[in-house]
């Protein structure tokens, strides 16, 4: 039995995704191609706000948009606010739960209770589940474009995340009113409280469960482990907590999964500067291996963050990182947890901050290109950070051919370097004498207004004028020089002309002289 999108997914897998092409939604209109990070954000935000405005108009003036066909609209196009059951009854409650309307579900529940009608255990547990998952607030919908543009939320990894669980909120109300407090109800409460960093609640619930000898499932244990590091003073406290919980798990024959160890490691990541964290995380890692669980990207992300946090200034050695890269070589990953998403961006940041070694960076890049791993680096900020770090590391150290291969793969549509990176590339070109690439750079630079900056313009023209080259390259450079002059002469009297002055013209003259083109050179003079 296939899923509804199985065929489409199979077709999509045949399409190459690493082509240097503009964003798909803009592909029809060249005017909308976006290159630099700023432009991408602006364009996509405009797209998104246009859509929201249209929805707003529909809501304000529904009369102008009447439906003229007979068949009813499918559910997807209908507005969500119409319910089948409006009267307070159990079905109405269930409907609101399935549609994830948290606030209205709470209201419906309170109405039913005040009416004195009975509710089944199942509905109450479902309501409890809904409330703890969303912490008694309506879920915020974010669209595809919004999630592409906006930065992800990494609050969970801050050292002491604040507790967002309100005392005596609706979830606790429902829980207390449950006729029979089953193990699953307790588990839901624990998971909800842990997701909101309410450590006391978690512990009290867990002790209650232990006192009543209720079975705890593995996800609940994972949730308890997540809050281990809050309100602790030293790593030893954390260690004690984690080991106690793990021993409870072993005693109750609950099999740990990868998430168990990740939850434990997240605590250490929050406190990575405290002594003893590194040893403990490696001990957990060995335990994980011994249990036969295959470590995924998330595990390695935690370990690497503890060892190589990129704001940490003390010296580091790359052996651990190299071992991790060796382990991950030749494996394909898919995005299962939120930590997976961070992997490539953070590791490249670590490489750039601690050991700017181009070989390591290229190994990581190779891992990215294997199979479907590229999907893990789709957020705009992650892509930009990753590639800018990659270029900063590679350009000073690798030969210009390697750099330009990478450049052609990515620029201009996937990543656009800033002016500092371009200056580095120009230096590298001068050093390795790769002037045949200057025309490529010039074409790409037309997307931006970097030439308006005098430093950049003089640097660029200096590369043009550096030495005499063979005929073909020299011709190209001369064409670039003439086009720059054309640009300047056309806009000479406008305020946004290129900042051409003596140095720049001198370089352009030299370029033409190198090409033995005295006439043009003299005309510039």
């Amino acid at each position, binding site marked *: 039995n296939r899923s509804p999108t199985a065929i489409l997914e199979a077709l999509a897998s045949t399409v190459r995704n690493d082509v240097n092409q503009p964003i798909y939604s803009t592909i029809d209109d060249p005017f909308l191609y976006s290159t630099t990070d700023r432009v991408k954000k602006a364009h996509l935000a405009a797209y998104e706000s246009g859509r929201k405005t249209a929805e707003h108009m529909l809501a304000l003036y529904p009369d102008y948009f009447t439906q003229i066909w007979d068949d009813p609209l499918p559910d997807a196009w209908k507005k969500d606010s119409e319910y089948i059951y409006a009267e307070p009854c159990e079905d109405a409650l269930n409907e609101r739960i399935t549609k994830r309307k948290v606030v209205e579900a709470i209201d419906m529940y309170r109405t039913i209770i005040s009416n004195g009608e009975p509710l089944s255990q199942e509905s109450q547990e479902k309501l409890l589940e809904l409330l703890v998952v969303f912490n008694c607030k309506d879920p915020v919908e*974010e669209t595809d474009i919004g*999630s592409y543009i906006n930065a992800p939320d990494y609050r969970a990894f801050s050292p002491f995340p604040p507790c967002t669980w309100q005392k005596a909120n609706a979830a606790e109300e429902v829980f207390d009113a449950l006729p029979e407090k089953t193990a699953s109800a307790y588990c839901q409460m624990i998971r909800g409280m842990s997701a909101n960093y309410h450590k006391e609640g978690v512990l009290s619930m867990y002790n209650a469960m232990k006192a009543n000898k209720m079975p705890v499932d593995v996800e609940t244990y994972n949730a308890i482990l997540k809050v281990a590091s809050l309100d602790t003073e030293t790593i030893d406290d954390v260690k004690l907590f984690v080991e106690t919980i793990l021993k409870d798990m*072993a005693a109750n*024959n609950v099999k740990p999964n990868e998430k168990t160890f990740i939850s434990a490691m997240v605590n250490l990541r929050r406190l990575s500067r405290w002594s003893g964290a590194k040893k403990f995380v490696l001990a957990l890692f*060995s335990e994980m291996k*011994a*249990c*036969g669980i295959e470590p995924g990207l998330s595990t390695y992300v935690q370990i690497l963050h503890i060892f190589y946090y990129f704001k940490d200034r003390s010296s580091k050695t790359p052996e651990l990182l190299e071992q991790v890269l060796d382990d991950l070589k030749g494996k394909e990953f898919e995005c299962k947890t939120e930590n997976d998403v961070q992997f490539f961006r953070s590791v490249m940041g670590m490489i750039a901050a601690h*050991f700017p070694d181009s070989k390591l960076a290229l190994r990581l890049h190779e891992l990215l290109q294997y199979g479907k791993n590229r999907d893990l680096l789709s957020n705009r900020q992650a892509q930009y950070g990753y590639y800018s770090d990659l270029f900063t590391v590679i350009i*000073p150290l690798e030969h210009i051919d390697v750099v330009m291969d990478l450049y052609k793969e990515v620029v201009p549509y996937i990543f656009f370097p800033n002016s500092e990176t371009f200056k580095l590339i120009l230096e590298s070109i001068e050093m390795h004498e790769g002037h045949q690439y200057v025309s490529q750079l010039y074409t790409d630079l037309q997307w931006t207004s970097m030439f308006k900056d005098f430093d950049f313009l003089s640097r660029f023209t200096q590369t043009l004028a550096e030495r005499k080259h063979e005929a073909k390259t020299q011709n190209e450079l001369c064409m670039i020089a003439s086009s720059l002059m054309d640009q300047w002469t056309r806009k000479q009297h406008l305020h946004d002309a290129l900042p051409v002055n003596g140095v720049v013209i001198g370089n352009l003259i030299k370029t033409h002289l190198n090409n033995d083109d005295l006439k043009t050179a003299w005309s510039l003079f």
Partner: protein
Amino acid sequence: MLRSIIRYSSALVPGVLVKETKLRSLSDILKLSSNLRQLSLSAPRYEDEKKRRPRRDKVFKEETPVSREVQEAAVQAAKSLPGDWTKTAEELLARLQTKDAESAREPVGDEPRSLLSTMKIGRAFEPGRDSERRRGGRKGQNNQKDDSFFSQSIVQKAAVDKKIFKERRHTSEFKDLYGVPRLGIFETKKEAEVAHDDSRPEAAEDLWAKVEKEHVRRLQGGLPRNAFEEMIRLTEQGKVWTFPVDNEADLHEERKYKFHDHVFLERHLGEFPKVGPIRKFMELVTLGLSQNPWLSVPEKIEHISWFAQYFKEKQDILKSTLGEQGEMKNAAKGSEQS
């Protein structure tokens, strides 16, 4: 002019580029500067490192003070240039102090080698380098600077050593990913035997798992990269039919009714007279409706009730022409008049 050339070239190549004619007598400086120029090919990175890690540089500076020869040579070079020679000398010495230890120790009196032999391509970061730098160089290499190294005070050297030892104690312990022994909480044999199956099916249906999946999808933040991915997203939102196209998609209203509701419509004819032309007409209407696949059951019933309404309005004309056969009854739906 010369000064501007120096400054201009030193912005890119922080070595000292001086006109050859002036320096034939200072061949030492020329070779030194050419070595410096070769070094400075990877200069930008060092500049960055300097900015980001001043602490390291301080340790380094303690260990390798510039030798007297070089100092004298620098002063001579500075004096030969126009301008304030003290300043130029300071600049030169500053540059010499911040260059790489190993390359600076290249024997100054040697022939200037080709660019390739001194340039470091590829792996510019060597892991052992930090500790070596602190210890003051590789053991067993011919150190031209041995005299300067030993001229350092013993106390200073001991202090540096202590620092190295402390740091190495912390970082070198954990170089191996599998180095630390396990906690020994879970019994590995037992875990390996127990099968995986129990946790998976629950996890897929759990609200937590679903929300987590959507959250991860959102964090990944990918836009559709081709038409197929766009269609996948639209299908998931329910705006596009699924493939293969399901005949009964969006037919949830129709599922309430069975075929006999569509075909046997005579029970809705309770309001009409049992015999006569009106009855015949309505039977033909029901025949036609039963063969109509496009209308839903409520719509068919609506058709019939429209006719009933119409005939009721024209009741007086019908009664006068048809008599009993024109009389509409006010019976409830589905009841058979006796």
